[in-house]
């Protein structure tokens, strides 16, 4: 990989993946791919075996053995001998240019292999979760030479996250939007944003049809008020119900999250969400290397890929450490309040009990955990 690129784009190895997945499963169903998901670690010998099995399916096209040696022998043996001398391992499979065994590319291929065949994050044990984030961190290091920290921290007990938004206070500065984009490594090219701030005319109520969510003039503008929308982390989330592969679900602490590696990109959830809370990666997300937030969570701001959904996670990488989401911290007006709904002493609970709160489209029964209120 070239390091000269100024823009970093997440490359979980389309080369490698295409090769390994193309070579294995499909063409050779009894091959090792079946054993992939169960195996946490392949030892060197098993990996060799797997790599060879994987390659045989494609040999008709690629293997020049017959032409060179013109020897009739068991292909499997022949290939084994050949690999033994030519040191064909993962490196050779993953990279057509490299026949010399490079431990890094071998490791890279192994990581890709295991990532390709890992299970749904929701079903993983804590040990497996740790292994997958370790793999992803190592993979990033191998590819870019830089380190990231990725957490697989689970939901805390006795915590249910909730959010309140003060319509009287929001001035429409959009500092929250900027902070969110930076915190969550959102695609800069398509200018993806989880938060929308709607500028609404006084006296017209919540009229989203006439509201402007992409204004650019001095704010607050005369005769207008501002309100923000994002993922509301519904307690009864329709997006979760419609997902055909269960790549999105509600965690114990109420966060609605996505396993980007399990998402097939069908966008049913996007259609099901009544609040426009979900975003789709139409192209490969791009974030300049020096702007990447390296403090990541598997379910949060780690780098996404093309063709998967993403959305606000209440900054799971922050909130599960006791911090406020980036939007809450960035808001200069104090319009955003975040906290633990189960704690009767929390400020969010005081707001719910003492202010006149409401939620958007309450009649749908989605039970958002995002309330609006006024002074």
């Amino acid at each position: 990989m070239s390091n000269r690129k100024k823009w970093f784009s997440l490359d979980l190895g389309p080369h490698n993946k295409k090769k390994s997945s193309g070579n294995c499963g499909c063409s050779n169903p009894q091959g090792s791919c079946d054993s992939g998901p169960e195996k946490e670690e392949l030892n060197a010998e098993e990996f060799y075996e797997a790599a060879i099995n994987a390659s045989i399916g494609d040999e008709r096209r690629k293997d020049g053995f017959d032409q060179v040696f013109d020897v009739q022998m068991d292909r499997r043996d022949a290939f084994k001998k050949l690999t033994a001398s030519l040191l064909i391992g993962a490196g050779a499979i993953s990279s057509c240019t490299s026949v010399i065994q490079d431990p890094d590319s071998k490791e890279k291929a192994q990581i890709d292999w295991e990532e390709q065949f890992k299970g749904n994050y929701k079903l993983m044990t804590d040990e497996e979760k740790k292994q997958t984030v370790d793999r992803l961190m190592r993979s990033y290091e191998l590819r870019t030479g830089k380190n990231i920290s990725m957490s697989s921290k689970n939901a805390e007990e006795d915590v249910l996250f909730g959010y309140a938004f003060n319509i009287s206070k929001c001035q429409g500065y959009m500092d929250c939007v900027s902070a969110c984009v930076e915190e969550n490594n959102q695609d800069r090219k398509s200018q993806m944003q989880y938060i929308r701030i709607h500028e609404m005319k006084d006296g017209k109520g919540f009229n989203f049809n006439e509201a402007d969510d992409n204004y650019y003039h001095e704010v607050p503008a005369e005769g207008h008020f501002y309100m923000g929308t994002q993922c509301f982390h519904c307690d009864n989330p329709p997006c979760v119900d419609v997902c055909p592969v269960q790549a999105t679900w509600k965690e114990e602490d109420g966060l609605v999250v996505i396993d980007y590696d399990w998402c097939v990109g069908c966008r049913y959830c996007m259609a099901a969400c009544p609040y426009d809370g979900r975003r789709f990666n139409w192209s490969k997300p791009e974030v300049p290397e020096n702007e990447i937030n390296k403090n990541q969570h598997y379910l949060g701001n780690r780098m996404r890929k093309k063709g998967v959904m993403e959305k606000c996670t209440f900054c799971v990488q922050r909130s599960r450490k006791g911090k406020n989401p980036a939007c809450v911290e960035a808001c200069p007006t104090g319009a955003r309040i975040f906290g633990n709904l189960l704690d009767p002493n929390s400020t969010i609970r005081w707001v719910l009990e003492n202010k006149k709160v409401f939620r958007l489209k309450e009649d749908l029964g989605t039970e958002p955990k995002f309330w609006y209120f006024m002074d």
Partner: protein
Amino acid sequence: MLLFAVSFVSCKQDGEYHTITDKIEADQKPYHGDLSSEELLAGTELIQITEGEHTFLIPERKGQIKSYACIECHSKPLNEMKGANGQKAHWDLKINHAAIETMDCATCHNPDNMNNLKSLTGKDIDINLSYKLCAQCHSKQFEDWKGGAHGKKVAGWAPPRASMTCVNCHNPHNPGFETRWPAQFNTQKVEERKDGLGH
């Protein structure tokens, strides 16, 4: 009636609640878990206050004011310090807080005791507890602030609660928020909507 009661019970047994409010009510308990804001607050000097039923932390103030203590300069009465030969101080202060008939410097500052603030009835208010001064007029905001509906936390959602005090966000001499340009403009959204791809 019986049927209704049975269905109600079975509903509860599933651990399902009709609304999020029911769920909160059923599962609530004061949080004493592993998460705490203490680490996040480590670098900030804080003082604990109790107002009504609320006890929480606010940032200490005197240590943040460069020219505190005030009496280091204000060693004699103000009218004696005025004059052409004295060093000019506070020249950059402009009061933009209520009408001049309502408020002037002496509404909050006591010329005879510059180290403290002064309540409307002439009682001393510690600069660290300046919110008491603001609360004299802004009683509604004070109520919301005590509860946590007005203002910001210093850091983190987890206990202990540390809230910014009035002057951490509002300049007491000019407390309003300025109009300004938004931090973002999404040019891509404009393109998409022009092409009819937006929502």
